[in-house]
């Protein structure tokens, strides 16, 4: 370390001659933190003198980056300076990416939490003007639509993955793999239009139905399920299959009793994440499930409210005065975010506790 080398000569001695210096000059380890602190101080000073936060923070950041790079250039030379510049830019990129997540979660929690109450969760919006009302109808609708979408997507997704991994060869398998990739890229609103175009043939113009929303969502969910299940089934060691065949077990029983149970934790994790992904979909449900203020528990008849559409509706068509609608929108956003975060957490826990240990 340079600091240890420097302790050899007395403090006030001139720098050691070149032949005894074993290492290039280096900034001390705390240099980046030090410059970050200087940048922070500059930002705080600017802020206290009345500069907007949108200007103070970038200026402080620039002080940090330019200062560190310049100091490194003087002490350590050009290559090290470039390295320091890249490191600080890359770290800043990460912090910048966390900024929207942090502010978004803060907004949702701080504005949504005061709205939550027993009434908010158990009342519908039927005959509500102004204050009051709740999201019971939207929660029920979201659960029904999502459950039906899962009921369609999970069997189709798992069986497709089984086909691709266990049976698929040749052109059909290649085509399916390609089309699953295409499906992951379908814009959600196009899925909604598809469901409309399909159901309008049977039910006539202006059809709105909860089940049609499930069909639209399953178009988005199936590729997610196929992808994750495929990855998991591929991880099952071939020895297990061969051992079963050697015992005379038919192929289908091998898949059902050996392959799928082995991969089950991963499959459930993938499905949970897929559900979390589609439960927040707004656009297709806005098109085909419609919006209503009443509780409708029948997915095969009439409009059905869901939470994302509720949030959008409260934002788009606020009553007079609009504050109550905004409050309800934030409250519903908080409930929806909590549900999604819980699903993601559940997926993590399942894969952590139940997947086969990969350690040798």
């Amino acid at each position, binding site marked *: 370390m340079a600091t240890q080398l420097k302790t050899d000569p007395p403090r006030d001695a001139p720098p050691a001659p070149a032949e005894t210096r074993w290492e290039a000059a280096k900034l001390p380890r705390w240099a980046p933190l030090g410059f970050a602190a200087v940048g922070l101080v500059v930002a705080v000073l600017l802020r206290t003198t009345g500069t907007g936060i949108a200007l103070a923070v970038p200026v402080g950041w620039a002080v940090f980056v330019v200062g560190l790079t310049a100091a490194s250039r003087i002490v350590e030379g050009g290559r090290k300076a470039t390295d320091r510049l890249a490191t600080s830019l890359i770290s800043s990129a990460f912090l910048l990416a966390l900024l929207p997540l942090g502010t978004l979660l803060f907004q*949702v929690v701080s504005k949504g939490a005061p709205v939550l109450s027993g009434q908010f969760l158990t009342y519908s919006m039927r005959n509500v003007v102004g204050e009051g009302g709740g999201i019971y109808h939207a929660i029920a609708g979201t659960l029904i639509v999502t459950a039906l979408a899962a009921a369609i997507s999970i069997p189709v997704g798992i*069986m497709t993955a089984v086909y691709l991994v266990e049976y698929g060869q040749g052109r059909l398998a290649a085509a399916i793999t390609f089309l699953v990739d295409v*499906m992951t890229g379908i814009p959600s609103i196009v899925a909604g239009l598809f469901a409309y175009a399909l159901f309008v043939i049977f039910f006539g113009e202006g059809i709105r139905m909860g089940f049609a929303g499930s069909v639209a969502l399953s178009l988005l969910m199936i590729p997610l399920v196929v992808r994750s299940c495929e990855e998991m089934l591929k991880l099952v060691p071939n020895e297990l299959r061969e051992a079963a065949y050697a015992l005379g077990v038919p192929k289908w029983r091998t898949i059902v009793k050996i392959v799928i149970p082995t991969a089950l934790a991963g499959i459930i994790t993938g499905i949970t994440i897929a559900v979390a992904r589609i439960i927040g979909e707004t656009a297709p449900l806005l098109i085909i499930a419609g919006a209503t203020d009443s509780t409708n528990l029948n997915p095969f008849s009439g409009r059905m409210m869901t939470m994302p559409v509720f949030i959008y509706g409260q934002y788009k068509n606020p009553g007079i005065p609009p504050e109550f609608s905004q409050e309800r929108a934030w409250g519903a956003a908080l409930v929806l975010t909590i549900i999604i975060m819980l699903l993601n957490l559940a997926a993590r826990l399942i894969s952590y506790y139940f997947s086969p240990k990969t350690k040798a």
Partner: protein
Amino acid sequence: MPTSTSVESTTSPPRRAGDQLFKGLATGAGVLIVVALAGVAIFLTYEGVPAFTAAKSEIPGGNGVVAYIWPLVFGTLLGAVIALLIATPLSIGVALFISHYAPRRLAGPLGYLIDLLAAVPSVVYGLWGIYFLAPRMVPLFEWLEKHLGFLPFFAGPTSVTGRTMLSVGVVLAVMILPISTALNREVFLQTPRLHEEAALALGATRWEMVRMTVFPHARSGMVSAAMLGLGRALGETMAVAMILSVSDVVTFNVISNTNPSTIAANIALKFPEATGVEVNVLVASGLALFLITFAVNFVGRAVVGRRKEFSAAN
């Protein structure tokens, strides 16, 4: 992955009814996906065709369906490109931070934090964009108009609400950041360890190591990450529908009150109250969106496809 199971013997393996049924079910599920996608194309075309055969005066705007869709296509591309310009460098930086700069033990949790961005529903991004981000963008817009107003992008007049194409681009960038980052991270981690260590052993700094070994190895992956992010941004609906203040124009001015709408947002805004031919026009625009995203994703996948071992991002 074929499983080599059938023992090549003189007698063929016994045919079991269960096996036949199960294989049929699995194949059927696969075929269902083919049918469903064919259905998307067929039904959208079927419902969209009346928009092209209808009289020009019946189309909203009165100038025919192409004149109706063109500004929307333009807006869609403009918003997505802004998002891409912001998100691509950022996602490369974030992915590099996670894969090569952060302490090894922190890499997993940090990646999870970025993935959380993907879990937030788009409608919540919309609320955040309209109530939090857009008002805070206004000073930036004013600064841009004052100092860079000679560029057509920042010609102004500045929107006082911040509901502009640039705000939309920022929100879209945040929304596509997780998918691009996940892909970039995956390719960065696949850099051969020996290459990296060889570079370091020759005295390269960390950044030189990244430039000499990681980037050349990951180039195609980075391109496809950008393409898939672009595909996501093109189809994003709710955030645009909630934030953008739209009018029927084609303009590169990204900080003013008059912005072209996007296909997806336009459908979301108009569809709930649409009747008659307007429904067909909206479906036709949806078909155009489907084709555009299909093309973009196709190119993205084709670039990835050249790397055999690479698994698609999810």
